[in-house]
């Protein structure tokens, strides 16, 4: 089980004053902040295991914010990105969101607005990481099922009654009941609803 890290708000902006003031704002919320003067510096340091979010300027010398977003997407990184910019326009904002940015705000903005968006981004990051961990755990449990138990589980999760499953698989109802009970135990599911949730989570993206 991976160790839980405290989330970090990464601030990437070539303007030192902006970096410093944003970092101060973040730390005033008792959150960790790390600043980078360029996209490349951030990438050099990037660790996908580290929870957090990025507050990212669009326009920087060298690699732009949008290029950084693309690079992170190529690596399959899911860290939420909040773009901040003095120069943005509607097409740019739409493009950034289409490519997966969580938000896009224009300067000047109120501190509270950025705070709210950072909180939302950290929440989203935590949810995504938890889902990924849950998914791995459930996949692991499914791997412990026998092929027959797997067949029964798939039909149970689709909502079929034991009688129907028995007919479908050519088993007695009693045998289906036994398999079903084993599935519930191996999956550590307390209810059908829970089992369905697990199955759906595992099926996502497959």
């Amino acid at each position, binding site marked *: 089980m991976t160790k839980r890290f405290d989330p970090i708000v990464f601030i990437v902006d070539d303007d030192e004053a902006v970096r410093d003031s944003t970092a101060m704002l973040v730390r005033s919320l008792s959150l960790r902040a790390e600043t980078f003067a360029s996209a490349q510096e951030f990438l050099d340091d990037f660790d996908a295991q580290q929870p957090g979010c990025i507050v990212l300027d669009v326009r920087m010398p060298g690699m732009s914010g949008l290029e950084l977003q693309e690079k992170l997407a190529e690596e399959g990184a899911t860290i939420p990105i909040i773009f901040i910019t003095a120069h943005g326009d509607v097409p740019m*904002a739409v493009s950034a969101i289409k490519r997966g940015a969580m938000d896009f*705000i224009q300067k000047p903005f109120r501190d509270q607005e950025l705070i709210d968006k950072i909180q939302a981004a950290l929440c989203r990051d935590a949810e995504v990481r938890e889902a990924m961990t849950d998914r791995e755990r459930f996949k692991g449990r499914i791997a412990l099922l026998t092929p027959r138990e797997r067949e029964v589980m798939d039909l149970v999760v689709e909502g079929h009654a034991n009688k129907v499953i028995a007919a479908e698989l050519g088993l007695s109802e009693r045998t289906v009941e036994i398999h079903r009970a084993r599935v519930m135990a191996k999956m550590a599911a307390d209810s059908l609803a829970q089992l369905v949730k697990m199955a759906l989570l595992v099926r996502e993206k497959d």
Partner: protein
Amino acid sequence: MKTESPAQRVTDEAGAPIVYVIDPDPSVQASMASLLDTSGIRGAVFETAAEFFAALDPRAGACVITELHLPDMSGLEIQRRLADFSADLPVIILASDANVPTAVSAMNSGAYDFIEKPFVNRVLLERIRQVLRRRSRDDRMELQRITP
């Protein structure tokens, strides 16, 4: 194209998916109708959300292009309702008073695209074609899946 009134259906290329357009401005209705017609794309143009929903056939639709501000409903509300129907109809928002926060909000609510007015015909057309290609690819995949 036989469109005389905004709610009339274009009938060339029968069977082709329909691009639904909703806009209160008659000049936008006319220019959209003309754009679709000259591109050989089947379209249906409406003035209000109510008219659109009355005529909507989700299975026949390719996408919905709607102005953000309609007399009877917001374009975002239309999108929400379509999502509730599980219509799988991409919604492109056209906005006469666009700004970054509105655009971001629309995209985060699930809009397929958000374009400021006045829009460039070529750009909008390319987006529509993107949606149609995706739709036709999805249809082919679906067909492959269900025909062994």
